[in-house]
Each structure stands twice: as C-alpha cells, then as structure tokens.
C-alpha cells in the first residue's frame, strides 16, 4: 500500500500547489487607489520585440517608438482625431510655426515653446528635480543630430535643409570625430530666449513641420546625455562604484508618462507624469461611432491612465491567450490570427463580441507594390507589357492570404490619409484579365508568346523567400501574372541578396517593395520615383525616370497644400499609373481587438505610442469581468489523480499475480 500512500500524498501536495496558483501574469500595480480614493487605472499593452534604443536622435524603428513616445513629447504632434487627411498640431510648441521667406531664399520658422513644461524628475538634475524644457535643449538636439558619434540616421535628410548642420558635422569630423557642444553650434538654430528659437532652412521645405513631429527634433536635456554615459561612477550605496546606464537606455523625458521600471527583454512599467499639462483630450472632431466614449473625456487632463504595463511578446499565441483571459487590454490581430477572431464579413466573432470586445480596423499610412526594373531591356522598354502584367494581377488573393482580406487594394501610390489621395480614383491597370490579354497582344506578345520563338515570354520575379509562407505568396503572384500568357520564373532570395539586387538593379520584377510613410505628405511617396533617387543612395527601386514627373516633383516638393499642388499631384499620379513602373498591391491594414473596459477611441496610425495618453480604462469593469473569465475547474486534477492511481494499482495487481 506504500506506493498508493505516496501517490495520495503527492496528489494532495499537487492540489495545494494548484490552489495557491494565480494565473495573472501581470505585475501588481504600483497602487490600488489614487490619493483621492478613486481606483488606480492601469493599461496593459504589448510590444513585439525588445527595443533597440531610446535615444530620440538615433532611434528610428516602430518598436522602440512605442516606448519612447509616451515618455518623450515632440515639438509638434499629429492631431488625434484628424486622419482624413492627417494634420499636425502643437505639442511642446505653442502653435504650428509658419514659414517666413527671406530675401536670400532662406526660410525661417519662428518657434515658441510652451512655458512650464518640465522634464521628469531624475538624478541627472540638481536635487533630482526635473527642470523646465528650454529653447537651448532644441539647439542641443540639433547638435546631437550633427554629431558623428550619435550616427543619426536623420542627419542626411535634415542637413540638406537646416543651415549649419553639415558645417557642424564637418567641424566635428575634423576635430577627431566628436562634436564640441560648446563651440560647434548649428547656425540654423538661433536661441532667442528661454522659450523662443528660430529654425532656419536653406530653402523652402514645408515638410519640416512633420520632422518636428518626429522624435529626432525633440528637445533633450544635456544633463541627461552627459550623466548617463555608461561608465562606472561612485553612485552606489555608501559611495560604491556602479556602472550607469547609457543614455540610449535611460531616457530623460518630458512626456505624459515616466519610465519607472524596465526589465530587459521582458517588460516596461510607465507611470503618470503628475506635472504633465502639455496636451489635453480633444474637445471635438470625434468620429460619430466613438462620440459616446469621447464626449465625457473632452478637455480632460492627460494621461487618462495612471500606469502602463508593457510586455514584450514575440509570439502571437500567448498574446491572444492573455487577451482572452482579460490580462491584456488590446490585441493587434495579424496574419493567421485574423481568421480565428474575425468572421468572413470582417466582423468580430460572436463569441468575443458577446464578451463586449470591440474590433476596429485602421489603415497604415503605407502602400505596397511590385517594382519593375525600368532599366531592363524587356520590361523597362515596353510600357504595354508592364500594363498587361499589372492588369493580370489580382492583389485580393494576396491580401486574403496575408491579412485575412482586411487590407484595401491600393488603387494609387498615395495611401489614405495623405493630402492628394483620391478615394474615387480607380487604377486603370488594376485587375482585368480581358484588358491584360489585349494589352499583351498590343505589347507585341499575343497570348503572352514571343512571335520570334513561338514560346511564352519569360519574365523573372524576384522576392525574399525564407519560409513556406513567403513561397506560397510568391507562387500566388506567379500564377496570377501567368494568366496573361507569359511564363514567370520565380527567384527566391535571402534578405541580403534581395537588397543587393535592388542596389545593383539586377532584376526584372521585384516583389516585397513598398513604403510606409515617414510623414503624411505626398512628397514622401513621390520621391520614390524621382530620378535623382536611384539606389543604393535613394529609394527609387524601379529606377524610374520621367522628365515631366521629375519637374513636377521638384515643383510640388516645396509647395504648401494648395489647390495648385493638388492638381500637380493628380497629374503625377496619372503619369505614374500610365507608365506602370510598379504593380500596385495593397495598403497595410490593422485589426485591433479591444476589451470592453479599454475602448479604442481613435484610428490615427501615426500616433501609436503617443496615443496611450488618450487611452481611457475602466478598472471597475475589468475587476468585475476578469474573474468570471478565469475560473479554475477541479475535475481535470481529480481525473488525472484518479487515472494515475488506477494505473499504479493495476500495475501492483499485475505484479502480485505474476509474483515477479
């Protein structure tokens, strides 16, 4: 009987262990109640990978943005509710500065910082108390952009316009590669007083206001950069030597939240900046379907949540599990996950809708397409052939495979939300098989066959394919294009090889190309087809060259969004569509599922991390619903213990019978 007693004891121990188990993976909030007695609100969010840097002048990727944006405000910020088209509004600046044309061709922007904006409290400041954000911090930021040590990816763009950046960079290079911040100033930034500065450009560049909404131009406290040097200092308890963080991993921000905990590779904890008053909740412009949620919040002080816990998830499955248990507040459905959450009519599955979850669909400011090599003698020199291939390709199947049918088919280069985007425009060379067959005949290849050889015309399709899914997508493209009669030879490349081919122009048709806009201006799309932007220095992968297009681009690039500019944009779009250097595919879409206690209140895809401060959370509703989604049944444990005991007992009986 001894083994049975042991099994019972083990089972009892197991039961005790289970009884003590709590399946909530989130950290305990910092507080339960606010000082006024109301519940402390926590928002639970995710990022898909570890971040690379939080240095505003260096960092330029989406994942790090999610963490930096709530911590660090920018000079300007996209208006939360304005997405058709997107528009920038004030943030650290009091208003959006207007350009003043100077007689020498230069342009000046008079900028005024909001007074009383404070940095977060940090040991880098005297007494640990954050000081006010001043104009010299903006000057310092531009110096950092020009410092070769920082290796800012923004430098080459901004130095073309901001006076004195290139000179500061050259001086630093001459002085051994490091910028002297006391002597090597950027002459294009003139500090007038604590809150006013002038930004001087060598030529008109209206897009500069969008750069002011990016982190690269945000003011930075010099104390923070110099304090967090990554070197050992006597900072430890009782003067012990301790290695300080590098500035890239210890931001000294001024945003709505302060980073208070960061467990590398795992999670972040942000807490409300009590002294934040740079922005308030929008007082109008709410979309009709969200008005009920937004109206009571109008003019409310930000941030709405007291604490934000952000977890690093590299896999989709655990995210969705935690969402179902109510331990995450929203979930970006993507690829395979879409089909399990969304019905064929693009609505949330009834099971989740019954829980009060909501689905919102937004379109990223991006356009994806296949690129023809315009320098290739075959496809580059035959417009009708390109048009025919464009007509034979139906992106819908690709979108179904990749985005569960959520993404809209791209009819034009500009994506929705960009000034000049025409929602009524239909690509004349969109999917139309009849037209494709007619055009291929007009191109000199009836039924897709080369009249000289009688065999199907062969075209190569290059792409990055390192997995089964990518191969499946490329095979889909191959089948689609072959509908016009040509033979498509697929070449699967690694990322490195594909990059190399782009740089060398060594392809006929290349898939996986496209653009996610840096800022919502048509210039940021049309520059992709400007002839002075050939790779490797530029992004004109097609190597498209059209004198009229170039002239129009040069003209529109420096214009404000006037009716005349809109006319030019329309003409450029027509030229591009007619020349067909690309096969348009889709605008990337985003499905977001939100918990009933944390409704999504906007569809602004340019804000991302900055939108957290506007996020409402109802902790009372969460506390009510969460336990009902997490009941622990006991029958599986009893069944498992009974099964084990039965097997053990049977084994003993067997052994006794045989007496072995």
């Amino acid at each position, binding site marked *: 009987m001894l083994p049975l007693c042991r099994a019972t004891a083990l089972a009892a121990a197991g039961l005790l262990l289970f009884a003590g*188990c709590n*399946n909530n993976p989130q950290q305990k909030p910092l507080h339960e109640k606010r000082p006024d007695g109301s519940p402390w609100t926590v928002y639970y969010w995710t990022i898909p990978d570890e971040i690379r840097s939080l240095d505003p002048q260096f960092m330029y990727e989406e994942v790090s943005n999610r963490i930096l944006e709530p911590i660090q405000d920018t000079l300007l910020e996209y208006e939360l509710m304005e997405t058709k088209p997107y528009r920038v509004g004030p943030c650290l600046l009091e208003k959006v500065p207007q350009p003043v044309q100077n007689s020498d061709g230069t342009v000046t922007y008079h900028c005024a910082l909001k007074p009383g904006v404070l940095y977060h409290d940090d040991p880098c400041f005297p007494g640990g108390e954050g000081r006010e954000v001043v104009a010299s911090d903006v000057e310092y930021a531009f110096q950092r952009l020009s410092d070769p040590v920082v*290796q800012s990816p923004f430098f080459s763009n901004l130095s073309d316009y901001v006076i004195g950046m290139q000179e500061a960079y050259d001086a630093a290079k001459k002085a051994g590669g490091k910028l002297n911040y006391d002597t090597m100033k950027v002459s294009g930034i003139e500090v007038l007083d604590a809150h006013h500065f002038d930004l001087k450009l060598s030529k008109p560049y209206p897009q500069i206001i969008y750069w002011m909404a990016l982190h690269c131009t945000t003011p930075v406290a010099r104390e923070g950069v110099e304090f967090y040097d990554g070197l050992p200092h006597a900072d430890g308890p009782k003067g012990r030597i301790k290695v300080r963080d590098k500035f890239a991993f210890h931001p000294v921000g001024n945003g709505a939240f302060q980073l208070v905990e960061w467990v590398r*590779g*795992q999670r972040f904890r942000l807490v409300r900046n009590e002294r934040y008053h740079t922005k308030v909740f929008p007082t109008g412009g709410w979309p009709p379907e969200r008005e009920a949620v937004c109206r009571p919040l109008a003019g409310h002080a930000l941030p709405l949540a007291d604490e934000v816990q952000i977890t690093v998830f*590299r896999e989709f*499955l655990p995210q969705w*599990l935690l969402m179902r248990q109510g331990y995450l507040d929203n979930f970006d459905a993507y690829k395979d996950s879409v089909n399990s959450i969304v019905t064929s009519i693009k609505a949330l599955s009834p099971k989740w809708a019954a829980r009060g979850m909501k689905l919102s669909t937004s379109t990223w400011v991006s356009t994806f397409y296949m690129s023809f090599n315009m320098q290739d003698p075959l496809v580059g020199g035959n417009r009708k052939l390109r048009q025919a291939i464009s007509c034979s390709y139906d992106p819908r199947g690709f979108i179904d495979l990749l985005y569960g049918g959520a993404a809209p088919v791209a009819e034009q280069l500009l994506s929705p939300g960009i000034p000049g985007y025409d929602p009524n425009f239909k690509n004349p060379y969109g999917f139309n098989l009849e037209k494709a067959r007619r055009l291929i005949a007009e191109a000199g290849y009836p039924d897709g066959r080369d009249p000289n050889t009688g065999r199907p015309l062969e075209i190569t399709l290059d792409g990055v394919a390192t997995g089964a899914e990518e191969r499946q997508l490329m095979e889909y493209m191959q089948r689609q294009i072959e509908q016009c009669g040509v033979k498509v030879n697929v070449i699967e490349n690694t990322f490195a090889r594909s990059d190399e081919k782009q740089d060398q122009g060594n392809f006929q048709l290349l898939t996986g190309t496209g653009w996610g806009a840096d800022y919502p201006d048509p210039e940021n799309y049309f520059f992709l087809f400007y002839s002075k932007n050939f790779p490797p220095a530029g992004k004109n992968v097609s190597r498209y060259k059209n004198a009229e297009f170039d002239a129009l681009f040069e003209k529109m690039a420096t214009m404000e969004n006037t009716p005349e500019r809109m006319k030019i944009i329309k003409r450029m779009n027509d030229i591009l569509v007619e020349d067909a250097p690309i096969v348009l595919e889709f605008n990337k879409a985003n499905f977001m599922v939100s918990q009933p206690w944390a409704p999504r209140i906007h569809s602004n895809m340019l804000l991302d991390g900055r939108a957290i401060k506007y996020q409402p959370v109802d902790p009372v509703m969460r506390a009510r619903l969460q336990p009902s989604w997490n009941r622990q049944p006991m029958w599986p444990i009893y069944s498992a213990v009974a099964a084990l005991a039965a097997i053990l007992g049977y084994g003993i009986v067997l052994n006794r019978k045989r007496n*072995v």
Partner: protein
Amino acid sequence: MFSYLIRRLLYTPLIIFGVMLLTFVLFSVLQKPETMARTVLGKRATPKTVQDWLHTRGYDKPTFLATGPKKPGQAGEGMFDTIFFNEMRKLATFNLGVSDVTGRELKEVFQQGAIPSLLLTLPAYVAGFLMAVGFALFLVFVRKSALDTAGVFACVGLMSVPPMVYIIFGQAVIALSFNYFPAFGYEMRSWSSIRFLLLPVALMIVINLGSEVRLYRAVFLEEIGQDYVRTAQAKGVSSVRLLLVHVLKNGMIALITYVVAQLPLLILGSLLVENFFGIPGLGNLLTSAIQTNDFAVIRATTFLTAILYIIGLTITDILYAVADPRIRLS
C-alpha cells in the same frame, strides 16, 4: 586517461575554430553586414550612415582573409585584419563584445540570461530524470504485460508529437481553459513567482519524457535479466526492493553518459519554451538575435555552446571510464 585529457584539450581550440568558421560562412552567406546595418539603422539610413556604422564595428573589413592588393577605401591592415580573425581574437580572450542591435555588453546580458534559463532547465532536468526513472522502473515492474505495452506505446506517442504541440496544448488548455498557471511571463521576486515556471517546467519534462523512459526501460530490462537479479529473487528479495535497490543502482552506470552530457548545456535554456512563455533566458536571447540579425549575439552564443558541449562530452567520457572499469580512455 591523463594523456586522453590532454589530447582532448588540444582538440578543443581546433573544434571551436571549425565551429566558428562554419558560423561565419553561414552568416556571411545569409546576412551581409550591410543588411544588418540597414536593419538596425532603419529605412532612412543612407550609404554613408551605413558605412559609418560598419566602420565603428569593424564590419567594413574583409570577412575571412584580406588577399590580393588593397582596394582604395578598403578597411583593414594586413592579411588577418578581417572580421573573422578580429572577432576570433576577441572571443579567444572571452571578450564577448557588445550586441550589434542594442549595444549592450554581452557579458552582462549572458550573466542575466543564465539565471532564468537555469531556473527553467535545472528543475526540468532533475524532476524529468526522476520521473523518467520512476516510469521506466514501473514499466519494468509490469514488464511483458499489456500495461507495459501500453506504456511503451504511450512513450512512442510522446516522442512523436512535436514540442510546439505540447507548448500550444499547455498554453491553450492548461493555462487558458483550466486557468491553472499564467500563460506567459516571468518574475523572480517571491515564492509566488514560482507559478510562472510550473507550466514551462512541466512541458519541458513531458517533451523529453517519452524518449527517456524508453531508454531507461531498455537499460533496466537488460539489468533485470542478469544473474545477480535471479540470485536476489531466489534469496527472497521483494520485487520493489529488487528494482529500487539492485536494478536501479546497476542501471545508473549506463545512464550517467546520457544524463551528464546534457548538464553544461542546461545554461543555454530552451529556444522554444522560453520564447513562448516570455522567459528572458539565453534561449530567448538567441531567438531574438536570429530574428533581429544580431550577429554579435549569435557569434557569442555559438562560441559558448561549442565550449559547453565539449565540456559535457569530456565529462561524460571521464565518468564513463570511472563508472565502468572495463572502459579505458586512450
């Protein structure tokens, strides 16, 4: 044995050199430093920014050997001033360098990652071993019966299921439907934090259980056919005592080789389980490095793995010779 050990030690640098050469060849085919730089610097990076990034890290030098006349603008002085030899020089002194993507000191990163990995793998290793031995002894206890056959069949079943299926089952059923454990996460603050490790440890045990039980069962079955077992039975030793004392003790010698070889590798954690459960160990670190093209991390991990593997195999050989006097290492 001493001469064997010396020879083994002399082989070690050559093996590691070979492993690293292979890693470099594979990586240089799949991922050029320029691509890595573009990934890190983002889409706005110009060729000049990329060049600066490469230069700072010494990645603008030739990959293996600088042969032929030096081209204008080519970095590196001398035939061996190449990425491969420079990095090998650093690794030889255990200077792991910094991450290419985050710029963090890898020594610190590895030290931090080793603890969660060990917290996951060590309990799974110990408990898994005990459970496998227990199940194997039970199958021997009921040998040649339907229960034994069913047990072997179940083991083959366990071995046939891919690890991913166990992970998905564990998360979707045990963590989600039954709500017994957190489906994701890790912390080590108090005893209650152990709840984060229970499910991943249990899954790691189950993933390896089938193959281990089958192996141990075969070893114990061989032992139970020996003369000393028959003698013990004849002397009236009970079947439980026979198994737990005589068979287990003698069978353990054969198990040492299998078990000890895994010991040094425990520190590296588990790629899949750590990634799916968000445990910030070295397995998770390597997965992330592969996804983000962090060659510095991949290089250092491969180097450490090779060393640990050689240590594991050497210890096994020695223990084998110690445990079984018939084995002579020469």
